């Protein structure tokens, strides 16, 4: 057996699944499980991850894994955790990994319930900012001015007009012990956060930015680059919160948002005309607000 085959045997999320080339989500799941180790059971609501990882008869999951429905990931996870606890198997921890659609939108009530009850689950949202499994429709996590198939650019509209829902803040408002954001582009940071999350008991939340080459529209070997640019622009702030307080942020040397937006088809319309330039300026304001709010800039000191 050669070295890479041996390494594959160690993977808890094994190769051979059916994600698109360069899928940020698939890569992030691999990172997550390396950080948790194998003493976990994973719950995944319907979405790309479920679809590409579970064609009947095959499975890359080398941990117990259950998919049930789209809108009940948190509740199924609570049930698994309760059962393990009741059986005295609390050493096996429960991790839910769901897309932004299931987390921000259709499963939001269940998520809120799980956090209000403070069930012992690490809930990870692998956020690609739209409903990819069904073709890239708008979600509550879709960033402003991104074009999606249900909120497309048209003569009258520049894509999504609203803000991305601030889910980390909403979860933190439930009193969660640990809330953090990460990016697939920063593996060590991501894994450190997973490990930190596992040190707590009760409901915890991690939101991972997972660029999707197929729907965002960029070459499949640019996933990490796109992820890095998002973070560097300030549009994807990386931070940790404990009991509602921001405890750490990942510092950036801010770049202008156009450097992040330009490489993606979903933002292409922003570079077509004058009007687009105004919208880019608005996005720059949003990035600047993030940078100020979290003290992201390494130049400005901050937290």
């Amino acid at each position: 057996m050669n070295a890479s085959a041996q390494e594959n045997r160690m993977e808890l999320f094994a190769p051979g699944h059916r994600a698109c080339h360069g899928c940020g989500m698939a890569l992030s799941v691999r990172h997550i499980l390396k950080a948790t180790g194998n003493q976990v059971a994973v719950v995944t609501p319907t979405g790309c991850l479920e679809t590409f990882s579970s064609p009947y008869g095959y499975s890359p999951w080398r941990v117990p894994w259950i998919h049930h429905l789209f809108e009940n990931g948190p509740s199924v996870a609570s049930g698994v955790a309760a059962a393990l606890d009741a059986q005295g198997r609390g050493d096996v921890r429960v991790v839910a990994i769901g897309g932004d659609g299931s987390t921000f939108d259709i499963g939001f009530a269940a998520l809120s319930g799980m956090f209000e009850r403070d069930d012992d689950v690490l809930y990870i949202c692998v956020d690609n900012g739209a409903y990819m499994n069904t073709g890239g429709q708008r979600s509550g996590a879709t960033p402003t001015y991104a074009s999606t198939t249900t909120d497309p650019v048209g003569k009258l509209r520049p894509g999504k007009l609203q803000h991305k829902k601030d889910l980390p803040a909403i979860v933190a408002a439930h009193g969660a012990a640990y809330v953090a954001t990460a990016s697939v582009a920063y593996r060590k940071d991501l894994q450190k956060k997973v490990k930190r999350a596992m040190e707590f008991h009760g409901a915890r939340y991690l939101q991972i930015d997972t660029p999707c080459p197929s729907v965002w529209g960029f070459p499949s070997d640019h996933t990490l680059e796109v992820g890095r640019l998002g973070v560097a622009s300030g549009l994807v702030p990386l931070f940790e919160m404990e009991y509602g307080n921001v405890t750490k942020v990942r510092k950036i040397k801010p770049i202008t948002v156009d450097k992040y937006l330009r490489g993606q088809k979903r933002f292409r319309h922003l570079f077509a005309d004058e009007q687009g330039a105004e919208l880019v300026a608005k996005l720059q304001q949003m990035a600047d607000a993030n940078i100020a709010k979290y003290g992201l800039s390494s130049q400005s000191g901050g937290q």
Partner: protein
Amino acid sequence: MGAVKVVEGSQAVAEAVRACRPQVISAYPISPQTHIVETLAQMVADGELGSRYLRVESEFSAASVLAGASCAGSRCYTASSSQGLLLMTEVLYASAGMRLPFVITGVNRSISAPITIQVDQQDTISLRDTGLIQLYAESSQEAYDMHLAAFKIAEDPGIMLPVMVCMDGWILTHSYERIDFLDQQDVDRFLPPFKPANLMEVEDPKTWGSYSEENVLMEFRYALQKSMDYAQERIPQVMGDLASYTGRDYGGLIEAYATDDAEVILVAMGSVTGTLKDAVDQMREAGRKVGLIKIRCFRPFPARQIWEAVRGAKVVAVLDANVSLGSEGALGLDLKAKLCGRPDGPLVVDFIAGLGGREINPLVAEDIVDQALEAAQAPTPPWAPIWVGLDASIVA
């Protein structure tokens, strides 16, 4: 024999559930289910019941918690009613499809609109095709017994499906009845702990809830149907086994009451069958050859047993406390479908009766028998169901 007490139906159910030692309970309140889940919560709060009790934000989550807990190998329980049961629908389909057993009390209540808390069976009937096993109780004592049996049926390795014990809201849940309780040792002997073949184990990790193309879904459904067939055989055995402890034998999937020489046979399920037994007795006293079939198990549907009991009758009058709008009641449809084409069978006439709490008493039953006989005399059978007791001043 265990204790005998006069208790509310909800209390009887809660006692049955406690005796079955579920490890996980999750519920969301809705009338008239509330007394059951409140009683269980009190038992947990007082340390009389060791279940993990998850007070979720919706029925959708209650059922979902059970799906997860069942997959992880715990015995689990919930109860709901009406709108709450409908909200669970998607979860129930998926749980049956994934062979995740648990027990639900379906406290029967009508469905909006108009919003009401009155009883009929539209709610549980709407879950007919989910893959649930559905049992219907006539009395609180029967509901108590059915709950004990339900866990054993659900967890049978050849079944592995959610089981719903349906009981009429208010009429059963909120009335006081003499209940014979079974001793805990007997319950434990009858119902050993749940030991699923597949646990969520890190040493032997498995994948549940896979994605299917056109290659396997049909085989999954077929396997479910086969399990339903097996359940038809197994449920009477489990109930017989329980009867050896309780001394109470209700018959198997159906109870045939005075059907042997009957010309007219009423078919119904739930608490109304108690009333109908009285009605049959009264009509018998008056010399009329009337019988009753009480359906105890609606899914799987005991067509063969029903056929054996009704084949000599002239007409079968089905009382449906539900309606499949644009067609007929669900029980009537099933019976007609299953009896159709069998030689010399009786005419089946469907009656929509008792919707939204509308009273059915022995006089109403007698009227139904008259109308059924009239229909049997008519040159062709009726195309439409017969609605019982409509207020002419409203529908005019």
